[in-house]
Each structure stands twice: as structure tokens, then as C-alpha cells.
């Protein structure tokens, strides 16, 4: 019996880890962990989740067992959140072994391929360039820059480059390319092009989660994510700022 509970605790914490790493809200991670533990026969389960770690304690057979998981990577994978959420709600009707097998399978589900992600980046940048008032020639440039930026940021993420610098680097690259296209006459509306491409880097996830976490009373996480959103916004503005002031300093053609 003890062995079973060890296994349950491991896997409940693992499900929580997957959720948190995919960008789920704090209350969802806590609820999911407790729901899984209670569904498989624990008498009591409580969990504390922070953006950087998970603490779980399960009481079963009059003994309590705990586990701490340190969370290091944080991304966004909505499909995985959705599937783990559904799986944990079905877990009343599922034997523990099946549950574990399905959880492992979910963890190794591949996301969209690299090429389609780059195409999506291109589409995102292009769409937003139109949205901010760009014209057709700008659209072509935005496709190129968007694809490159997406490839560049996923490359930096893979090599665990510090994320704020990675964002600054990508946004600087955006500005550099956009100025280049503008100077050779391929992109008439520079502002729309730069803003459209920078939208790929804005902190949408951090803002949403900061709001939702603060609302559900997870104040520490709400504050952390709010600060994260501000830092990302600064990092996004820093890159083009640097490139454009260097451009002016080195005596390039005026940009505005």
C-alpha cells in the first residue's frame, strides 16, 4: 500500500510540474494535484504552488508523505494544459496504472514542428503589421522578420540563454532588419513593421496569468508574474532603442 502512495505522490507532482511548465495558472495546478491524490485514495492532500516550485503533502493510512519539485523551465503549451486538465477530471474512472501511462504519453506529445512554428511566427508578424497600418510591401518584410525571430528565439531558448537577454537580442534583430528593409526601400512604413514584429515578443502570457493569479488570491505568483511582464516589456523596448540610437549616432539616414 505504501508503495502505491509513493507512486501516486510522484505522479501527482509530475502532473503539476507539467502543468506549471506549460504556463497554467497557480490555482489550476494546486487543484489538479489535490484532485488526483484524493481520487486515488488519499485521505487528505494539500499543495502549495509557486511559480518556481511545487510542494505537496499527502496523508494516507495515518502517515503523511511530502514531495518538493523545483521548476526551472517555463513555456507555454495550451494543448498540454487542456489535456492534463481533462485527464485529471477523468481520473475517477481510471486505474492508477492507466493514468500514469497516459500522463507519460502526454508529456512526450510533440508540439508543432519547427518549420510550422516559424511559419506561424511569420504569419503573426505579418498580420500585426497589417493591423498597425502597414502596407503590402511591409507584409512581405514582416513575413521574413517574423520567421527569423521565431527561429532565433527558439534557438536561444533551447540553449538556455537567459530569457530577458534573449528577448532584447531578438527585438534588436527585429529593429536592425526592419531598418535595413526600410533603407533599401522595401518597407515604406517602418513603425508599423517594427511594432508588428515586436508583438511576437510581448508578454501576453505573463499579463494574463498575473491577472488571473491575483484574482484567485495567489498573491505571490500574481506579483511575480506582474513584475515579469514589466521586465519583458522593458526588454522588448530595449533592443530597438539601442539599435536606433546607435544608427543615429553612427550617422545613418534619419529614420523619422
Amino acid at each position, binding site marked *: 500500500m505504501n508503495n502505491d502512495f509513493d507512486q501516486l505522490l510522484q505522479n501527482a507532482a509530475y502532473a503539476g510540474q507539467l502543468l506549471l511548465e506549460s504556463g497554467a495558472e497557480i490555482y489550476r495546478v494546486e487543484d489538479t494535484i489535490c484532485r488526483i491524490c484524493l481520487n486515488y485514495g488519499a485521505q487528505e492532500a494539500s499543495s502549495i504552488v509557486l511559480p518556481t516550485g511545487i510542494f505537496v503533502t499527502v496523508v494516507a493510512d495515518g502517515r503523511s508523505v511530502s514531495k518538493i519539485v523545483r521548476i526551472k523551465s517555463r513555456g507555454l503549451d495550451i494543448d498540454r494544459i487542456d489535456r492534463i*486538465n481533462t485527464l485529471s477530471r477523468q481520473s475517477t474512472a481510471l486505474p492508477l496504472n492507466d493514468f500514469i501511462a497516459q500522463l507519460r504519453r502526454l508529456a512526450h506529445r510533440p508540439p508543432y514542428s519547427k518549420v510550422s512554428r516559424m511559419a506561424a511566427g511569420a504569419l503573426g508578424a505579418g498580420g500585426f503589421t497589417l493591423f498597425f497600418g502597414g502596407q503590402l510591401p511591409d507584409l512581405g518584410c514582416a513575413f521574413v522578420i517574423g520567421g527569423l525571430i521565431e527561429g532565433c528565439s527558439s534557438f536561444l531558448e533551447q540553449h538556455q540563454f537567459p530569457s530577458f537577454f534573449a528577448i532584447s537580442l531578438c527585438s534588436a534583430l527585429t529593429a536592425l532588419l526592419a531598418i535595413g528593409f526600410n533603407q533599401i526601400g522595401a518597407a515604406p512604413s517602418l513603425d508599423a513593421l517594427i511594432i508588428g514584429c515586436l508583438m511576437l515578443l510581448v508578454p501576453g502570457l505573463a499579463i494574463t496569468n498575473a491577472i488571473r493569479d491575483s484574482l484567485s488570491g495567489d498573491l505571490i505568483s500574481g506579483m511575480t508574474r506582474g513584475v515579469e511582464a514589466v521586465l519583458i516589456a522593458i526588454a522588448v523596448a530595449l533592443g530597438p532603442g539601442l539599435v536606433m540610437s546607435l544608427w543615429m549616432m553612427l550617422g545613418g539616414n534619419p529614420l523619422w
Partner: protein
Amino acid sequence: MVIKLIGAFLAEIGFGVLFNIHGKKLLAAALTGTLGSLIYELVLLGQAGEILAMFLAACGLCFVSEVLARLMKTPVTTFLICALIPLVPGGGMYYTMLAIIQGNTMSALEIGIHTLGCAGALALGIALTSAFFSLSMKKS
């Protein structure tokens, strides 16, 4: 405005793929985001301020996201994160930065505070709408 909305829709599809949303949900998320931009543009047409437009658009898209999430049995964030993106004041951030490097402190402050106001209105709209939703869920 039609071109703007088409742009927003295309961009939403791109972002949905980057956030790993699949199938029907991808389409629903993109349409929710487009609806948010539509409300924003319509309110702006009615001579209202940008901050009010942002607030109303956030309320609208959050409402639709909450309803869709219940219909399609999926977490609200599926639609919310994706739909929020077009409203994030990226333009404001950029123009603030531009004013700073031009050494134009007064207009940097002006644009910066306006941008913060927009972000605040966005957050408030979402917070308010989801708070009302959790209230009505607990009653029923």
C-alpha cells in the same frame, strides 16, 4: 478597418500555433481575438478615448472566452491568452521608447503613462469580467 481585422485574424492564427492550440479551438481563439479588436475599433469610431475602448474590448473578449471555455470544456486561458495579444499596447511601448531615444522626455512621459493606462484598463476589464463569472458559477 476591414484590413486591420483581417490582419488581426491572421496574426491570431499564427499566435495560436505558437501557443500550441489545435483544431476547432484554434479557430475559436482567433475569432475571439478578432472580436476583441472589432469592439476596440468600433468604440474608437464612436469618439471614445483609447482607454475606454481597451476596457470595453477586454470585457467583451473575456466574456466570450469564459462562455466558449464552458461550451468546449477547456481552460479559459486557451482563448484568453491568445485573444488578449492584439490589445497589448505594443505600439505604445514602441513610441515611448522612440520618444526616450529622441531625448523628448515630456512626450515620453505622456505616451508612457497613456500606455500604462491602457494596460491597466485591459487588466481591469478582464479581472472584472472573470470575477463576475466566478460569482455566477458559485450561485448556480
